[in-house]
């Protein structure tokens, strides 16, 4: 997954995200911000899923589904690029 663009984002702790290369801005909740930060740090999606199942009362399948959906949202905004799906 190409995720270099995520490192350019200006992320405010209140959940406001600004992309300085496009001028677009987004709002995200705490979990979304945490996932973005984990992706920036280079964590694999599997590790992010594991952390979510430890922190929240969700099954692995639910966590995979949610992370997958969120990465697709990021793809849709051209913030990450994938050649194949998780």
């Amino acid at each position, binding site marked *: 997954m190409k995720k270099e663009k995520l490192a350019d984002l*200006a992320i405010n702790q209140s959940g406001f995200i*600004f992309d*300085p*290369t*496009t*001028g*677009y*801005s987004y709002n995200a909740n705490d979990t979304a911000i945490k996932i973005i930060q984990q992706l920036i740090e280079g964590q694999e999606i599997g590790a992010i899923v594991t952390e979510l199942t430890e922190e929240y009362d969700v099954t692995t399948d639910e966590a995979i589904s949610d992370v997958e959906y969120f990465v697709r949202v990021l793809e849709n905004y051209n913030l990450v690029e994938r050649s194949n799906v998780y």
Partner: protein
Amino acid sequence: MSIKLDHKDLVIAVSGLKTGDNPQPGVPIIRSIRNAGFQGKIIGLVYDNLESGIYYPGLADEIYQMPFPSEGRDVILARIDYILAKTKIDILIPTLDSEIIGYIRLAKELEQRGIKTYLPNEEQLLLRDKSKLFKTFQAKGIAVPKTVFLTDATDAFNLESQVKFPLFIKGALYEAYRANTINEVIGYFNLIKSKWGLPVLAQEMVFGDEFNISLVGDGQGNILGMIPQRKLIITDKGKGFGGVVVNNKKLNEFTQNVVSTLNWRGPCEVELIKDNDDNFFLIEINPRFPAWIRLAEGAGQNLPAMVVKLALGEEVETLTKYKTGTMFIRHAEDIIADISEMGQLSATGELIRGEK
């Protein structure tokens, strides 16, 4: 690095003081110059007694009505000589598309009168003319939406085989309308022709985000300072009433290519569109600062102050840094003034406020 203007006895003349729904750049240029610490005299050159900046408190020390550019160089020069009998002018910053070429052609006469400008030469100006944009830049590998000239309303019937609809129908200097059909093309052709003359341009529409870049070129292909912004609010007249400063490598390179192609000297505004595949297209180059130029000052590059120093022949440092995420939103406000000010301007063609 902020630019300071500590010249106390300098007189700077600026045109285009209208604000409102189709604002001119004079007011924000003067405000940026003042904000650089300028203590000298500002002269406003106006074409209309109702240009709102005339009445903006603390903006211009003196106002002079000017003849329209179409009245010719002798009339304009005679008016400048009249003004010079009342006050010196050290620097002149023209801000309207229609007057730039006249002042470029008067460069020698202005210089003889001690008036300095920082403008492109005539060749640079004409290469970026809307009617030449496609030819000038397409050959240099800079993408421009396909453009066709219309000199007669019946040309509209040949458009479908040459360009894709919808189109923008544009005047050579001002105005642009979106046309979805041949009938709309004919309507807008006649409207623009009657106001601005020929040629009228039909330009393919590119769908995507609009970016505007305000910059100052050194005349040798280099950019001395530049602020790119993405339009956030666009009015029904296509004017950007809000925007945010961005930093995009591809956009920066594209803009540098444009400036290098022209060897642009002086201020300008480059208008680009980025399509959904991340390709940039050059839409227009306006040969002057835009009305949103205070955003440059806000983002850390006071480009009007830079132009003052360049006009004086002073060294300036190339500005490369600016604060992304700086945004502007245009705000309409009522100015309160006494009608006697307008009366004086109407009766005498000038308005002098106190001594400086």
